């Protein structure tokens, strides 16, 4: 019996976990789900309310949906009816996406600890203390005033989501490190220091861990030793620190690493060497979304310019450009011929993969209420009412208001004919 348990555990840890059990589906973060997903919206199957906003993306294994909430809990919810299986209290908000492997749920919290929880019971297997979480911060950040005030970035919304591969769990931290822990014991295998916050979620492929840092570099690190294979520098912005840093998480497909960057570019890098194959210029708009890759296409969204873009995976040439209404931070997910993605105006969109055509959209009740006229009547952000001042806390308050319309940061999960995602209205949604 014991040997059978060991064998199952080894099987789970020996390769890449199954395709719905971690951020962007699997360790390579391709974000392609092996199901068709709804081409039409039929109904809200269920909603599951939590005590605070949900930025975390849901993952699935064995009939359960796992996700974190900013109320500090990690939740396991029955995928079929939305009933709670268990919840586990951490010491801070959980805007990270859990990874499930070998019957264990792995996730980090703003309390600076990384947790391994039993997937069935929610009991803690082990905890690991990092050097502490924090948001990216800078003086005169985004032009916020006074100039000499160090301000935490209100748009640094995600925590790094772990990837599990080859018996280890890898994740980034606000303390500037990428950590590699033994997945079964939580013992530190190694940690890799970067120059700033790491909230990008690492991807794993062929013995290498890929991730970006807010220090402007994108890294490839040997998964076993933590030795740097290469690093690639994105843009810098010494004046207001707006156009710098990798907040997007990479996808690794066919020897190419795709990642967005706050320098307003999507990069395609050679996975072996780090050499740039091409970049797509997103016209001064952050690429926070993590790209989805399928059928030779790379799909991603942009923030201020609010674009839905599809480019050729080999050349970076634009294939589809659709003008959206509001910032896109939610990373797109592909199921069959449909692409699902959230928008910060509280809308979930389903688009045709080939044409980019909007098939259907779902608007949260908070978005429909539009309290305080956060949105214009056509669901764009109402900038004159939101951002009257760049001084002191005004932009921070404005950002909090902006997120009051049920913003969808969460990357959709598709299981069968159901789409799952979280919203800043505090609910996890299941649509079919």
């Amino acid at each position, binding site marked *: 019996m014991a040997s059978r348990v060991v064998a199952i555990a080894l099987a789970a840890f020996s390769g890449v976990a199954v395709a719905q059990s971690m951020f962007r589906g699997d360790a390579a973060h391709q974000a392609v789900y092996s199901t068709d997903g709804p081409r039409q919206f039929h109904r809200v199957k269920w909603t599951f309310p939590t005590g605070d906003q949900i930025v975390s993306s849901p993952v699935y294994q064995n009939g359960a949906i796992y996700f974190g909430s900013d109320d500090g809990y990690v939740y396991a919810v029955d995928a079929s009816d939305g009933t709670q299986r268990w919840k586990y209290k951490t010491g801070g908000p959980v805007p990270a996406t859990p990874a499930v492997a070998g019957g264990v749920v792995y996730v980090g919290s703003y309390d600076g600890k990384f947790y391994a929880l039993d997937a069935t019971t929610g009991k803690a297997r082990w905890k690991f203390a990092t050097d502490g979480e924090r948001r990216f911060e800078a003086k005169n950040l985004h032009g916020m005033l006074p100039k000499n005030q160090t301000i935490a970035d209100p748009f640094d919304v995600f925590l790094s989501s772990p990837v599990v591969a080859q018996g280890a769990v890898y994740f980034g931290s606000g303390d500037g490190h990428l950590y590699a822990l033994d997945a079964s014991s939580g013992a530190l295998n190694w940690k890799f220091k970067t120059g700033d916050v790491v909230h990008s979620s690492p991807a794993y492929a062929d013995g290498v861990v890929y991730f970006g840092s807010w220090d402007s570099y994108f890294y490839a690190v040997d998964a076993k030793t933590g030795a740097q294979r290469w690093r690639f520098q994105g843009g810098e912005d010494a004046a207001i620190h707006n*156009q710098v840093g990798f907040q997007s998480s990479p996808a690794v497909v066919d020897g190419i690493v795709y990642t967005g960057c706050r320098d307003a570019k999507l990069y395609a890098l050679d996975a072996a060497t780090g050499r740039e194959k091409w970049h797509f210029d997103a016209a001064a708009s952050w690429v926070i979304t993590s790209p989805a890759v399928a059928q030779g296409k790379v799909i991603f969204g942009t923030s201020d310019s609010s674009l839905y873009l599809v480019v050729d995976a080999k050349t970076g040439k634009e294939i589809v450009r659709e003008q959206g209404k509001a910032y896109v931070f939610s990373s797109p997910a592909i199921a069959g011929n449909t692409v699902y993605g959230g928008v910060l105006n509280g809308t979930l969109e389903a688009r045709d993969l080939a044409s980019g055509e909007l098939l259907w959209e779902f608007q949260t009740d908070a978005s429909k*209420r539009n309290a*305080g*006229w956060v949105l214009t009547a056509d669901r*764009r952000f*109402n900038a004159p009412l939101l951002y009257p001042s760049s001084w002191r806390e005004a932009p921070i308050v404005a950002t909090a208001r902006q997120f009051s319309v049920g913003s969808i940061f969460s990357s959709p999960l598709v299981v069968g004919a159901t789409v799952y995602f979280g919203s800043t209205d505090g609910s996890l949604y299941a649509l079919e």
Partner: protein
Amino acid sequence: MRPPLVTIVGLLALAASQANAAQPLEGRWVGEVDIPGRELPLIVDLAPAVGGRWVGSLVIPGLGIKGAPLADLVVTETDVSFGLGSVLASPSQGPAVFKVRVQSAGRMAGEMRQAGNVAPVALTREGPGQVEVPPRSTSVAPELATQWSGEFELGGYPRQMTLTLENRDAGGAQAKLVIVGKRTSDIPVDLVIQDGTLVRLESSATQIVFEGRVRQEAREIAGTMELGPLEIPLVLRRVGRGS
């Protein structure tokens, strides 16, 4: 003979009512816009001007708006309507617009439309109007009335700015401002002021302000450009010869 007190009070009341009858909508109107989830305090100042026209300005303390001129102001015996120009304007939905109607003496109610949203407005008269007159463009020295050009960097990309100053017959100078980066942007300029060697341009729609000193025998204007919260050093050099 002293007139009885009641007569004096009666005469004063009559005078006041006649004044109100003449200009019942003049004054400072204080109230709020009842936006769902966010009540917005509002002060509207109205005053009659020459030629039967009206002028007005607006204060919204919560949004940093003080003395914004009322655009397209129409005042009838019972109704007031106005827009706010570029203030609170939405790129996709156009300018903010107010329409209110007299409900009773000293009270008006109506609606505000902003960014396609509509909310009720209620106003109460609280004293005489304190209309703010917006600053007007001055004319500029003849040697400045020409084309100027400079470069700056924003977000890691170089931008080219071209400014053309021109004196009008009346109403001071006007400016044509074009910034070329990844795309070409025509910046609407509301205000051009020259005060000695100081030159200031304001674009309220884009929150762009340029302020600089004329130097080098009017061959350059050196100063800073404010782009919202950003402050960027900028030297404009004369391209044309001047008028």
